[in-house]
Each structure stands twice: as C-alpha cells, then as structure tokens.
C-alpha cells in the first residue's frame, strides 16, 4: 500500500497516522507538503490526517481545502483513487467539495476527547472490509467541531444510497442520543462519496491500533485497506 499523507501547516496527527499506516501495511507512507502540486507517482491511498490546519482560522478546513495539493487530490479522486480524511481531514474534504455537508461545533460547544462506539454500517467498501456490517467498534474522538449536518435532501440521499459508513451508537449498537456526543444528524460519524472511494470520518481509528494503547478496534480499517489494495495490485 503506497499511501500519501498530506501535511498542511497546523495538521498535528500526521505522525500518528504515518505510524499506523506503517504498522498496518508494513510500508512507510510518503509525507506530502501542502504546497506540492502533484501526488507521488503510484499513490494508491491519500490520507488527510487530523489537526488544526491553519489554526482552524476562518472556518475549519476552509483554507487547507484551497491549498495547491488539493487540486491533485480532486483529480485523483475523480479518477477513482482512494481518499481517507480523518477529523480535520473530514472537514477539509467537505470544504473541498469532495464530500457533502459540513461539520459544526459540537452540540455542547466544548471540545470532546473520549472513546466512542461506532456501528460499522457496511462492510462492502474498501475502507470497511476489515469489519462486519453491524459490528460495533470503540475508537476515540478528539474534536470541537464534529457535529455533521447537511440539507435534508442530501441527508436523504446519503441514507438512501447507503453512504453513511459509521454511526455513533451505544456499546450494543443502538443509535441513541445519549451516545451521540456531538449531536451529528442521524448520529453520522463517517460518510463516503458517491462512488464510494472517498471516506470522511470524525473519530480517530489510527489512535486505536494497539492493545496497550486503547484498543485494536481501529486496525480493521487500515488492515482492510491494505488487503483490498494488495488484491487489486
């Protein structure tokens, strides 16, 4: 798996992501600076990690979405290339027009860092083949603006087309307002693009890949991707 991790000024989980990609795929990713105009040749996964690109100034993700490298990412995605955006990466993908909707401030107006439970809605995507549909995984969140919203029509389409990939849920997999920490509509934690090759999610699977550090529940996402790409190759 040749992955490319984008680095914008203010991104701060690029090291976590790079370590997880190396751990789960056996290959070091290439770190790609925001001012570049092209992705490395042979890239088969683009990852936009979490952090506070440009300090979240103006609006989270808004400035990074307009960086030179994002034109290359748009072209890459249009070609069917796999793109994963986590946390600030999800916000950037929304701002870049690669995913619909927007992430608003958490309902309680505070930054929240704790483990959440996610229900994996589908296992037939390149990002979730390491899980079973309906499986509940425990991964951490760390964000102030993770409250997903879009207009009614868009939400209906996302739901109708099965593009909601992860939902916040109770430990036994029930969608319940008490377990939807940021107030996201329909408890949406992660969505895919129309073609299914772009995934944005607020939680941090990359921080739960070792038993000694939290859990290994995040591993399935990366291991599944590595396997999917190995098969394709």
């Amino acid at each position, binding site marked *: 798996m040749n992955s490319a991790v984008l680095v914008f*000024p*203010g991104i*701060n*989980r690029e*090291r*976590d992501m790079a*370590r*997880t990609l190396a751990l789960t795929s056996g290959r070091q990713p290439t770190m790609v600076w925001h001012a570049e105009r092209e992705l490395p040749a042979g890239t088969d996964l683009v990852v936009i990690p979490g*952090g*506070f690109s*440009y*300090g*979240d*100034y103006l609006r989270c993700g808004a400035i990074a979405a307009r960086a030179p490298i994002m034109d290359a990412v748009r072209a890459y995605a249009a070609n069917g290339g796999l793109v994963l955006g986590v946390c600030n990466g999800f916000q950037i993908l929304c701002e870049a027009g690669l995913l619909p909707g927007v992430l608003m401030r958490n309902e309680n107006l*505070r*930054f*929240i*860092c*704790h483990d959440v439970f996610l229900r994996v809605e589908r296992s037939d995507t390149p990002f979730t083949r390491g899980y079973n549909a309906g499986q509940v995984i425990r991964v*951490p969140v*760390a964000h*102030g603006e993770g409250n997903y919203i879009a207009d009614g029509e868009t939400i209906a389409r996302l739901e109708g087309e099965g593009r909601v990939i992860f939902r916040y849920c109770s430990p036994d997999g029930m969608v319940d307002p008490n377990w939807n920490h940021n107030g996201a509509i329909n408890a949406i934690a992660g969505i895919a693009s129309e073609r299914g090759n772009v995934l944005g999610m607020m939680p*941090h699977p*990359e*921080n739960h*890949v*070792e038993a*000694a*550090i*939290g859990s290994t529940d995040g591993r399935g996402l990366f291991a599944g991707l590595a396997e999917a790409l190995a098969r394709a190759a």
Partner: protein
Amino acid sequence: MNGVILNSTPITPALVAEHGLKPDEYDRILKLIGREPTLTELGIFSAMWNEHCSYKSSKVHLRNLPTKGPHVIQGPGENAGVIDIGDGLACVFKMESHNHPSYIEPYQGAATGVGGILRDVFTMGARPIACLNALSFGAPGHPKTRHLVAGVVAGIGGYGNSFGVPTVGGSVRFHARYDGNCLVNAMAVGIAKKDKIFYSAASGVGMPIVYLGSKTGRDGIHGASMASAEFGADSEEKRPTVQVGDPFSEKLLLEACLEIMAKGCVIAIQDMGAAGLTSSSTEMGAKGDLGVTLDLDHVPCREEGMSAYEMMLSESQERMLMVLRPEKEQEAEAVFRKWGLDFAVVGETTASKRFIVRHRGETMADLPIKELGSEAPVYHRPFVTLAKPPAIDADTVPAPESIADALETLIDTPDLCSKRWVWEQYDHIIGGNTVQRPGGDAAVVRIENGPKALALTTDVTPRYCEADPFEGGKQAVAECWRNLTAVGSTPLAVTDNLNFGNPERPKIMGQFVGCVRGIAEACKALTFPVVSGNVSLYNETNGKAILPTPSIGGVGVLDDFAKSATLAFKRAGETILLIGETAGWLGQSIYLRDICGREEGAPPPVDLVEERENGDFVRALILDGTASAAHDLSDGGLAVALAEMAMASGIGAALEPAPTDIPAHAHWFGEDQARYLVTVPADKAPAVLARAQAASVPALRIGVTGGEALALPGEHPLHIEALRQRFERWLPDYMAGGV
C-alpha cells in the same frame, strides 16, 4: 503610555513607581549606571528586576533545594530541566504559572501559559510529548469561579489541542482562599536526544542574532510586572497586559525550530517569554559572557510606529531569539520561510559586555549586560514561623451516622469528584502513546515505540501547607513520588511551581521558607532532585492571600510500559492489601473539613524513610507482576481510595472490620501518609505478607474484590454503578449552573 513616547522623558519618582520599582531599587540603578536612565532603560530594569524575572525574594531560599543527581543533565537556570532517561534519551520538563493573567482573562491567560511552557521545552531541542497542569479555583459559590473554570479549561485545551500535544494529567481544586486569585500551573514534558540539547548561552563575537516566529505587537507590555504585584480593586483594568496566544504559530515554530536544530544551524536559542526581547537577549549575552547590540529597526512588528520601549517590553507570544552559525543562516532562513514564519537578523554579539539597543539611528539603551541580571536586588525578607497547630485526637472527631453515607457524600464534593468534565476537553490521546489516561495516580506515556515510558503527575495539598508549611512541603513531594510509584515507575526528578501570597508579609514569607525547606528535605531523602521550577508570589487580593500552594510536577521512568499498574480492580476474588501504617490521622483531613466542617489541626506527618521503604516494596510487587492493581492513598483516605478502585473497574469489594484500637471513621477516612492499596491473587497473598514482614513494611489484608458493590463492614452496600453516577455528577452539574 499612549502617543509619542520620548526616550528622554524625565524619570520622576511617580514614573519609577509605575514601573514597580521601589525607591531604593531605583537608587541601585543610578549607582550601577552612574546617570539617570532613559525611559527604555527604565523599562528594561523594571522587566528584569521584577519578582517574576529576578526571583529577588526567593533566591536565597531556593539555593537549598537539591538540584543534582546521577541522572541530572541540566538543573534550574535554563529554559527547562533535563534528565537522562537512558538509551541516549533525555527528558526535558518544567512547570510554570500563569496565575495573574488567567484571573484577568482566563482563556488567553491559561492558553499562553501552556504556550510559554511548551516553548521552554522545545527551545531546548525536545519534542513535547505531554502536558499536565495544576489548577486551583475559588469556592464554587463565588460569582467568578464558574467563569474562571470554563475559561481556563477551554484555554488549556484550546492551546494544547491545536498545538498537538496530549494533556495527560493534572489536578483541580476549589477553596475560598483562591476566590481572588486562581492558580494555573502548566507543565510540559519533552524528549530529546541526550547529546542534542540546546542552551541559551551565546558564543562567538560578531555572531548574528536572529529573531524568529510571530511579529511583535503591543500586547503583554509589563506582563511580568503585573504578575509581580498583588491585585486590588483594579485588576480588571489590567486586561491589556495579558498576551494573546496563537497555537497555530507555535506549532509552526516548533516544527521549524526542530528542523533547523536537526540541520545543525543553531548555536544558542532562547524563547521570548516574560519580558520578551529584553530578557531573552540579555540572558543569551550574559550567559555567554558577551555583549549584545540590537537594532530594533529590523524587528518584525505587527503594528506601525512601535517605540523602542514598547518593543523591548512586549510579551507577544510565539517568538524566539537565536544565534545561528553564520554559514547556515540561509539554510535556516529557508526553513522558516517554508513554515511561513518571520526571520530577521536583529543584532549581533559583541565583546563589549554592553547591552545596546538602537532604534532609528539612535541609542535608546546602553547598559552593562551582566549586571542587569547579577546586580538585581536580592532580599532576605523577614519571615515568621507560626506555631504548629496541635494534633487532633481522632476520638474527639465526631463519627458519622454511617461510614457508607459519608463516603457517598465525599466522592460527590468539589475536590474529590471526578474531573472528567475537565480532562475530556483536553486531547489526551494525540501521539498514540498515552498508556494511562487521566484519572489514575499518574499518567503513563510511552516514548516513541517503547517499551520505555514516562510516568507523570502534579501534586500538592495546600491545606497541609497552610497548617504546617514544612510538613506540607514534604507531603507534596512525597505524594508526587508515591503517585509515580503507584503506577510502577521509578521516580527520577521534579519541577516545582511555588505559588504564595505577598512575600513582603513575614507570615507569607514564613510559609514560603517552610515549604521550600520541606520540599528540600523530601527531595533529598527520596533522591528526587528539583531540576526546574518557577516562583509565583503576590497571589493576593486586598490583603487576602491564597493557600500556600507549592505544586510539584514529577517524572518517573518505566523500562516497560506494559508493566505499569492501574488503580482499577482487575478481577473478583483477589486479596486487597493495605501497605503502610494506619494511625487514623484526621487533622486537616477531607473528612474533618467536608463532613465536620472544620479545617483544623496538624496535617499528617511524613516519615520519609517509611515512604521510601513502602514505595520500594509496592514498586517491586508491580514490576514482578504480583500486584494486579495499585493505588496511592491521599485525600479521603482508605475508603475513598477503595471507592476509586471499584469505580474504575466496576468490580466491588467486601471489606473486613476496622481494627478496634482506632475509631472506625479514623480508619476509613484518616490521611496517614506512605500508604498504598494493592490487589494480589488470593493464593499469593500469604507470600506477599511474608515478604512485607521481612522488609519491615506494614501490610494488612483488608478485604477481597468481587460483587457489584463496595461492602464496608456493618454498612449498607454501595452499588458501584450508583456510586459512579454520584462521583461523575458534581462538576457537570456545577458547570451547567446547578449545585
């Protein structure tokens, strides 16, 4: 200071007083330079000679702290302390206060406190891997408290989360004595290669001095002086002296600094913290035995028309001063440009040992550089040691109607309740190395891919320090050492953050002197040197001082993070052992204060020999895998510690009756020191008790884990889930406006 400020402004006694300088201190300046200072020079002296920067009241006492040890690489005097943690690695750490600014403007005050301490750590070449803090707020009922808690916590999170360092631990307390002065002590910890530590001493004549980072603005002028005076009715008017933080710039500054350090560009580096450009440039010169000439025309400014006076005293954040290798200057500049940061040569080192500041072709200041620091006043302030309060006989303290009810009440109080509401606003997992998250005795953070890890904690019990400064100082260190031990680490060194009232009052000075003596004694006895620290005095409003609060930040090392212990019970049927002697000490206990409404008596004495023996015993049990859980006993004593172990696991316990030689409530709530709880498999308990006896360590079998309730003998069982709900409720309810 609006409009055009002439450097030749006549220096009147009123102007001198406005700069926080006493008449005899001004005389000292006249004698030192042999003429009347210019306005810029007066500003420079006020910045260098205030309490915050000069340590003039505390210096003579701080000398008694043990600062050396086999693994100390750098003790106090640099940006941060440095210790050797093996494998060619060094741990760089320090704690610093931002009390005064946080009271005036809680979000920015706390945020820039975090920013400042992070800069101190990465200035030395270390990548920050963890932050901690120690927060003290006024009584919950005080009209400002809720606003301060909300702002300070958001500020700490706002800065650390964006910068990208996990905030892994800390402490939060409430007491009416902090009504007029909250305390915000922030600690940062970083890792560097042992042979790649960077220092502030300049070397070489004619070397370019480079300014890096954000631009200089008019914020924070006289911030350090503000932090060196008590508050009166006008504290709100001091808002403009609080700096504004930009964690985004600091993250860029971190990456740029580490990049040019790795490229070998840096000779010396100093961050611009308190007293900004003045303090950083004079320190670099003085430490290197060199003079410095600054040309302010080249300083990147955020605003037009800034005077020399303003530039020299600005405390704008996210700025660094460096001496670079001349042949590497261009390479360094390219790195800074890449990160979008300012880079300007603003001066050079000279052989003259003068500190010369030029602006628009004129000399604004010309002072002897070494004397600016070395000739700062040093005070042997008078102090009184108050008589120790008498010990309280536990028999005279009323027993509660029910021990179980008292326990339920205690875990639902501001000081003992869960602080989840606070630490869930801090990203405590970024970095992917947080082995033990907040809520335990100490945080455990793996170093890179391990297996080595650091254990980190901050501790102090201010009510003990108030009652008996010497024992209180000892106890703060002992509890820190104990918390590090309880996770299985070997305690290595501390940073201290000494928060007190007005040192010009002999009673306050007596608290300071007593606490420092206690800290020194404990640090010596536990081989736990002080490698960095900070003193914050004048935490006082209208003559009312805070409780003496010497926060101790400790660092321990674990060779293998997988061996660290947590406080949660692990499985049913295990034996619970109480390690250490229980005499039932209720003086200054939480039980006495929060159940009986009395803050009285002598605090528990600390026997440092016992501390070491008991701690070494517990650590050995953890590291050889015998102990499945371990927990330090502190506020609230045995009963509260048991409840915490049960709540962390969801596993209950059945306890044996209290010994009959002390009152039951003294057994359950006494705060005797040097104690731990450990659990061991039942079949191993006899051997462990024998080991304890052989080591002369008191150990007592007090119960067995299991069930869904904490069952104290003769009491109604406390269901763990219900207990947890009470433990978790106070702070969120309070912050939502209830309670």
